């Protein structure tokens, strides 16, 4: 558990410092403008890709819930308020206070509702709590917002894969795992 939380903290610290500079996505035209070209990608540093996708045994011990924290690319840098709340969420998670961590993440979501990292983090929290449906839905929500951020999307697919596996959907899990791998290549 402790190891897990240390890994999490390191991963988050990495992901936040590795944030791409703010790349504003031009508002999509309502009427008469061309659709925006996808914003340029930021290469994900190799060390952030280190954690292999988790192997999931049928009855999940805590270790299997370790989903790698994806690097944040392409997304606007979170403001200091959200960074502080993410920190608080980490500390709560590290001390096993998951609902407190969730409360901090929800505070952050009220400030930056469109930040896919926050939805992803909430999804991981629910995965740890074995709320599989919520984990899947939150990862899907994050994916819907994480346009062009392959690393984050891969992380979301890994959450989905782990949750599907846990509810006995082996085929679905395999598909999700493949999506994740495809995005990481």
């Amino acid at each position: 558990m402790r190891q897990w939380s240390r890994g999490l903290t390191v991963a988050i610290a990495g992901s936040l410092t590795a944030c791409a500079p703010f790349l504003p996505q031009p508002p999509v035209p309502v009427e008469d403008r061309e659709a925006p070209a996808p914003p340029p990608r930021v290469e994900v540093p190799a060390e952030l890709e280190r954690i292999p996708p988790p192997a999931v045994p049928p009855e999940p011990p805590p270790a299997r819930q370790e989903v790698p924290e994806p690097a944040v690319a392409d997304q606007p840098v979170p403001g200091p308020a959200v960074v502080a709340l993410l920190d608080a969420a980490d500390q709560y998670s590290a001390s096993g206070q998951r609902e407190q961590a969730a409360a901090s993440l929800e505070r952050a979501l009220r400030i930056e509702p469109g930040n896919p990292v926050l939805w992803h983090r909430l999804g991981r929290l629910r995965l740890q709590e074995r709320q599989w449906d919520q984990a899947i839905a939150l990862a899907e929500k994050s994916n819907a917002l994480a346009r062009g951020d392959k690393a984050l999307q891969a992380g979301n697919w890994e959450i989905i894969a782990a949750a599907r596996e846990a509810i006995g959907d082996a085929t679905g899990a395999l598909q999700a795992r493949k999506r994740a791998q495809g995005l990481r290549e």
Partner: protein
Amino acid sequence: MPSRPNRKRGKKRSRRRAVTPAGLWLFQLVLIVLFCGATYVIWLDHLIRTEFEGKRWSLPARVYARPLELYSALNIHPGDLIHELELLGYQREREVDGPGEYALAGDTLYLYSRTFEFWDGREMSRKVRLDFAGDRVTGLADAATGKPVPVMRLDPLLIGKIHPEHREDRVLVSFEDIPPALIDALIAVEDRNFFGHSGIDPRGILRAMWINLREGDVVQGGSTLTQQLVKNFFLNRDRTLWRKFNEIIMSVLLEWHYPKREILTAYINEVYLGQHGALAVHGFGTAAEFYFARPLNELRTDQLACLVGLVKGASFYNPRRHPERALQRRNLVLAQMRKLGYLDASEAGKASSAPLGIAHSPGWSSAKYPDFIDLVRRQLQQDYRPEDLRSEGLRIFTTLDPYIQDVADAAVSRVLAGLEKNRGMPGNTLQVSAVVTNVATGEILALIGGRGNGIAGFNRALDARRPIGSLIKPVVYLTALSQPDKYNVHSLLRDEPVTVRQPDGKTWIPKNYDNTAHGQVPLHTALEQSYNLATINLGMKVGVPRVIRTLRQLGVHREVEDYPSLLLGAIDLTPFEVAQLYQTLAGNGFTVSLRAIREVLDKKGRPLKRFAIRIRQSLDSRAVFITNFLMTRVVSNGTARILAARFPELMPVAGKTGTTNDLRDSWFAGFGDNVLAVTWIGRDDNKPAGLTGAAGALQVWAEIMRILKPAPLSLAAPENVAWIKMINGRRSTDDCPAAIAFPYIQPYLPEGEAWCERAPVLPGRPVPAIPPWSL
């Protein structure tokens, strides 16, 4: 066997006969009296101990609004922040040196926040400076060190209490939180010898008599604080000697069992200090909130003295009703404190010259947010027994944003008064309802259940089921767009007369609002202009059961009948249910349950229950996105285009008007990226209100959003949605100036060669001030 007792009796009798002094009778009598007396005292002792130890004051549940989060980059007008601070009872000072104070210097606001116990821990009191540039916080830093503070919370506004049966209001204070000056003042006027006596104070009675004689007024009572506490415990107020006797015995017993500080704390929480409507105000904590709208530990000496003055007669010295008397009494308390050396001359002088400083209204009022509190109560009843709600001192943290609620309340009054005036209706003809939510979290930010003058307690937002009219149309179009191989934004629909046979055998001939059939129209135009015939034809083709399934996925759980008239909104929903439906649209197909409560804590601040975000992907994001895009065109080009014309700065937003038969119900539902609102105007007697969606409910919506200025809809397309430039229903070249980009689901893109023409012929373009076909 029987002979022995006889013998004994005989002996006894003979002995008694032998020695029969009256003394023995007396002795026996004394014994009996002593025995009875002792039993009685033991009984009293039991009574007082049970009362004192078992004293679990029933505490009302306290209901809080959302706490205001402060951080750099927050959009808030300084005036709105100050308004919030004033609601919270913060005092404006020149220099900020204690919790609950603020000061304004140019574009900088200094603020000393209060410590508050939240679900996720304690938010510590801190002194900060906020720098503003216009309506934006540009810096938030510790006032002393200048170190940036990333984020902090103000204490939340108390918006209501759920009270116990016996109608007491109480805010418990622990000994540590009692201001020393309060104890000084109490001792000075009520019980000078409190720390010396053992429950009763004969010298105190004599002194009180003497002082009262000398002052010619009842300055001091003879009862000790302990006696007063006992008196309060046993509410019997008759002034008999017997009661006095009991009181004395119990006071002595109480003192014998418990230390002074416990007795004092109990006294401070128990004493009766006023009446708030039907509610008795008990204890100094409650009184501080009631008279000064601030916590007890923030009161100044003069304010504490004012409260202590109330002990003698809460009604006679009521500072709201009899400010003169209250002031006199307060200064008497201060003088007494000065005499006993609790205050020096300058302190006493300063305190005596201060105004009473009573808050206009109590620190909270259930009357201010009745509709929202009603919703909270209903959601709580699913998890808590009514008696726990009323007595366990639960702390309920809700989602209400008091600022948004105030804005919505004001908007409703302005718009409705204006509508009634312009249309020559008698005042208060129209009724109204509104639900404002946070798109991402599903939190209810504000709720309006009606205007004050209607049926009392009728919460229209939750209970008034009305046909939703054209608010159903996006559901029909979404159902079609969910089959991208069959439908896209430019699919041609037949806006032609149709006769529908309902399952009950009746035929139904729907019409367009302008009584005109428009022939073949593109799908986007049909929704923008809310054409009934095109919608019916589309819906019949797609299939009503399929539309019902979409409705379910959007979060409508009511029984829906499989009638074609459903396609034009023949379904009765409450504004709350409509908000849930549109919430899923605004969430691009993700349903979040609407919530009014975030967390529940027990009276000690320990977390009990949290209502977390619960989310579900119910629909294909791409089809929902395209539907939302079409709803932005309802606002820019369609039945709600008055909105874009009047408030271009708010665009784009997605919205839909709704009007029902004979103009009975006027609806509008609309959202940007973060805020969604559903508004309704109609009449309680269900007579025609005479308003289309655009002419009525839209006005309320616009008036709310004009002030809130929510973030527009970002319209960031999901993956696999392509923007294709179109002109007159055909694919255009990329540089074609008059072409418009429309979203398409891949791979179902429009075919044909790209072309361009100069003047596009767009249907439905004429612009009357208020569109006549806003069904």
